[in-house]
């Protein structure tokens, strides 16, 4: 082992690995182990391959529909957050106006508010007799208990991820670059599209990916507003709960395993994106590390 100047390498490594194994690695390994154990019901029907059983479980029509609902709503919510999150990040870091600090603090609300509380609040708000629901009802727009409601809840959850990823990068942009562009005859729009935007794109995509990844696994804020109708407003995490209620542990483990793999994929994507991002900022002479 190399020599370290500071003490505590063994202790901190030991405790970190102990905590990580106990709480994260071992339980997740057990999840995959469980997914590969054939349940007695499956053996009774003559099933012999656990891989085949897992594949059959995670591609049942109801399960496939739940992925569709989850992915569609999450993607739409993430893209909408991409647009408004960018505007909010820009406004908060570039303009001075009354109430700016309050808005800045409020952006983190979805992350600080317990998801179940957000869930019942949004449901009340968008129910046909709620403040916003009753305004939309005359136009035939139903939000609560439809997929639109799920999307609204996921927009709520995802907003801080986009704002808080893009905002620091906007703040770290060097003013002289914009001034140079203006001196060379670019109008404001050209400066924005050709100079500012390219520097922000990696962070922007990262933020949208984070919002998307978070939305796919979201449960508490969705479960109330979704009404959880199979094939219509049932998202994948709710399906896991339904499987558990029917004591179908093997089915729950298979879907859970698929969701963990998806989370790992999102995390890998984000890590790659961030490497691209930091290369780009260091290439531009930014002071971020």
């Amino acid at each position, binding site marked *: 082992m190399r020599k370290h100047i500071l003490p505590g390498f063994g202790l901190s490594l030991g405790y970190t690995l102990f905590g990580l194994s106990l709480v994260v690695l071992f339980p997740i390994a*057990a999840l995959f182990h469980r997914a590969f154990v054939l349940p007695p019901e499956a053996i009774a029907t003559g099933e012999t391959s656990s891989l085949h059983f897992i594949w059959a479980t995670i591609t049942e029509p109801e399960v496939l529909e739940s992925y569709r609902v989850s992915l569609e709503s999450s993607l739409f919510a993430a893209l909408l957050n991409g647009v408004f999150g960018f505007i909010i990040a820009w406004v908060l870091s570039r303009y*001075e106006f009354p109430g700016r600090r309050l808005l800045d603090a409020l952006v983190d*609300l979805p992350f600080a508010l317990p998801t179940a*509380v957000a869930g019942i609040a949004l449901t009340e708000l968008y129910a046909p007799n709620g403040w*916003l629901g009753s305004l939309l009802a005359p136009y035939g727009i139903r939000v609560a208990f439809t997929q639109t409601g799920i999307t609204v809840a996921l927009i709520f959850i995802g907003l801080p991820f986009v704002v808080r990823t893009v905002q620091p990068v906007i703040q770290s942009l060097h003013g002289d670059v914009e001034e140079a562009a203006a001196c060379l005859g670019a109008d404001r729009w050209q400066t924005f599209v050709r100079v500012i935007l390219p520097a922000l794109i990696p962070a922007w995509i990262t933020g949208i990916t984070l919002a998307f990844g978070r939305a796919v696994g*979201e449960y508490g804020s969705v479960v109330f507003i979704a009404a959880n109708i199979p094939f219509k407003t049932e998202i994948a995490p*709710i399906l896991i709960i339904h499987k558990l209620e029917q004591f179908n542990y093997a089915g729950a483990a298979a879907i859970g395993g698929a969701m963990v793999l998806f989370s790992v994929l999102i*995390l890998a994507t984000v890590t790659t994106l961030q490497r691209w991002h930091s290369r780009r900022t260091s290439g531009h002479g930014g002071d971020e590390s």
Partner: protein
Amino acid sequence: MSAVVPLTLAAAPARPASRSNAARTEPPLVRWTLIGLAVAFIVLLLIFPLLTIFHEAFSKGWAGLRTAYSDPGTLESIRLTLTVAAIAVPFNALFGLAAAWLITRFDFRGKRLLEVIIDLPIWISPVVGGLVFLLLFGRQGLFGPWLIDHGIKIAFALPGLVLGTVFVTFPYVARNLIPLMESLGRGEEEAAISLGARGWQVFLLITLPRVKWALLYGLVLCNARAMGEFGAVTVLAGNVRGLTSTMPLQVENLYNDYHMASAFALASLLTLLGIVTLILKTFIEWRTRRDLAAASAEIEESLPEPIPTP
């Protein structure tokens, strides 16, 4: 640098550059349109739900609030939530300190991978966070039969709720410490060691005072997420009302029983917890920024002078 998590402390200045010249800003019409859009979106998406919570909580007036908070199930859920947080938060605090020390003070193989794995619980669905422990400790779980034989209850009991909560809130303390400790560098600690300080002296006298605000904020955030945790505890609490209902689960019970005023009354308490967390974040960010500014000013001042002896 690894995955961004909202609510980690920002080091950059919150105030827009005061020097606003024509080359760096947009025409007033564009500016005010953008401000209007941002404000409208935040009001519609964030402020309306917040108002709904308090409006519903007070829909039956103070008497309604009193009824809500005299319900034994609700009081029990508050007690249970406090117990779960009191166990889960210190565990994660110790982990966060160890992980931050390890990652920012040493170079070793696999460090980046370790950082990514620490973040993993944030991106895994909380329902899956509950599921993994159910599959270990539930009746049909890996250790289920053994636990039943020995009369130990983990799933559908307090230990299960704690495990699920620890999983979900695992990275928060570490996430808040790592960027700050990275930017502070190892120099002062290494100097202290070379001058003969012991490891615990370095940690208590040098590291801890410099990261105390970030640590405090990490604890507050971890606590807020622990008390508000819903998905993982839904799976691990089973359906034993009263015995294993934490506050968010009690909110769900009341809501599903159409006790709207009581559900929102309890929800408003959780909302206040969230608001306090946001206020603390704003305050601590302001403190950290001031400390950092003071520290860099001090360095600039002391540069030409000889290094003072401690």
